[in-house]
């Protein structure tokens, strides 16, 4: 473009932008550029993720919530070895809410395992690691998965796919509450159960649910979990994993051991069984939709399954 056409383009821009004086234009540009640099040039929406294995990657997304807040969500997804999303491998989505005062990194093992099996898993961050203080963050993560962000790794990744919502411990309670705000296609409670106050809303709009409990859980007692699971609308599945404790749903069971709550199975075995249970449930309710969830969960080693 020559100097003459530059001037014409500048005049046109001035008319469009309503900037009456040409001298104002560079000042306005300078201010906008300064503001853009100050603000970090946009919310994070990467096109690729950091590879976790040959078949999964993770990327951090940002979205604007609660008028002035930036929500950060870790998204694990099926990917090629270079971290590029692999849409052909995607079978469904899962929003996972962290347990109370447990960092989101403690659930990376589960999110990665599910991503390697074809599920896009969103793990939103919460202030103070307490999801209960901002229930809507799970809803925003659900929106992020369903709508994606144009031009990002999530663009069209879950097109026409179903998405489940779940959490561990207090995160499960929050997932139940978030379900009453923005319904997902299925619910997953890990060592957790729905708040009784939310049962009327959950019953009014039932979705398939899984309560996955540890038989040796010292924090969410088995009897309490079983009783609460019985209150969920059908179709609901309760699966109790033998020898598993509360913190074995996270990356470390050290807190249980310190509290003299001794698991009967080692952490790796517990993780394998937990991941396999969640994977089989998601496949049944999000992909096949054939009501086979109880049957396929019975095939998980060390599980006692009851379904309604």
């Amino acid at each position, binding site marked *: 473009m020559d100097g003459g056409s530059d001037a014409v383009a500048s005049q046109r821009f001035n008319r469009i932008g309503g900037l009456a004086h040409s001298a104002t234009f560079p000042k306005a540009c300078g201010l906008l550029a300064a503001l853009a640099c100050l*603000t970090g040039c*946009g919310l994070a929406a990467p096109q690729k993720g950091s590879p976790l294995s040959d078949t999964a990657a993770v990327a951090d997304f940002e979205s604007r919530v609660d008028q*002035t807040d930036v929500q950060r969500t870790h998204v694990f997804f099926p990917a090629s070895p270079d971290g590029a999303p692999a849409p052909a491998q995607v079978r469904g989505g899962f929003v996972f809410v962290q347990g109370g005062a447990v960092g989101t990194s403690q659930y990376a093992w589960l999110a990665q395992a599910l991503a390697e099996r074809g599920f896009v898993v969103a793990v939103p961050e919460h202030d103070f690691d307490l999801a209960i203080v*901002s*229930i809507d963050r799970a809803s925003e993560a659900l929106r992020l998965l369903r709508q994606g962000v144009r031009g990002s790794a999530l663009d069209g990744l879950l097109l026409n796919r179903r998405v489940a919502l779940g959490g561990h411990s207090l995160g499960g309670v929050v997932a139940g509450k978030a379900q009453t705000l923005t319904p997902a296609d299925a619910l997953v409670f890990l060592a957790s159960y729905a708040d009784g106050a939310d049962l009327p809303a959950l019953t009014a709009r039932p979705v398939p649910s899984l309560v996955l409990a540890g038989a040796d859980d010292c924090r969410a007692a088995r009897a309490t979990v079983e009783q609460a699971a019985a209150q969920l609308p059908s179709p609901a599945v309760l699966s109790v994993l033998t020898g598993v404790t509360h913190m074995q749903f996270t990356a470390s069971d050290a807190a249980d051991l310190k509290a003299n709550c001794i698991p009967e199975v080692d952490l790796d075995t517990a993780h394998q069984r937990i991941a396999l249970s969640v994977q089989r449930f998601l496949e049944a309710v999000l992909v096949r939709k054939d009501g086979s969830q109880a049957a396929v969960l019975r095939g998980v080693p060390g599980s006692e399954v009851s379904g309604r």
Partner: protein
Amino acid sequence: MKRLALAALLALSSSAHAAAPWLSLHGRVTPSPLLLAYGTLGGAAAVGFSLPDGVGLRGPAPEERPRASLLGEASFDFLDRVAELRVGRQWQLTAPRLFTLSATLAGAAFFVPEGRTDVGLGPDGALALSIGGDTFSADLGLQAGAEAFVQGGVRFPVRLGLGLTARFRQWTLGLNGRTGVDVSPTTFFRVRAEAMVVAGWYGPW
């Protein structure tokens, strides 16, 4: 009586002030102009001023202690990337003794430049009790407001703050903690908490 009514109105107000202010947490109107800067653990940085009535920036201190002041604060949150501007008027409701009460009425403006670009405006108010004197004080404040955003809707922040402030000649240092909720028709409530460290410089200069 009017002062008591104003104080009661602010204390009982279901909506009123929110996000930035350090100045309105203070029960005493500053005796002379004050410039300050503060940072929060949440990633925000701010500058502010207090300009008491009848006190010039360069002139000598007045014989009578000021009872009202113009306040201003501008902050930027580097993690959430939000700019906030707040201007208000503070009145000292009681004589400056061991226990001193003040009230603030202010207006705030927000600019959200990223994602869903948005602007917000709203009134806010604060009631603060100061225990101590000009050299050292502990302040307890209640802040509440209403903030309306073009795209983001409305929220009603309510905060309870506790601050400790010490003055060394022309310098002042403070530590404040605040907690509260943002009540919103769409998201129920959001719990908020923050701590901030403040450094200020008293005039006249």
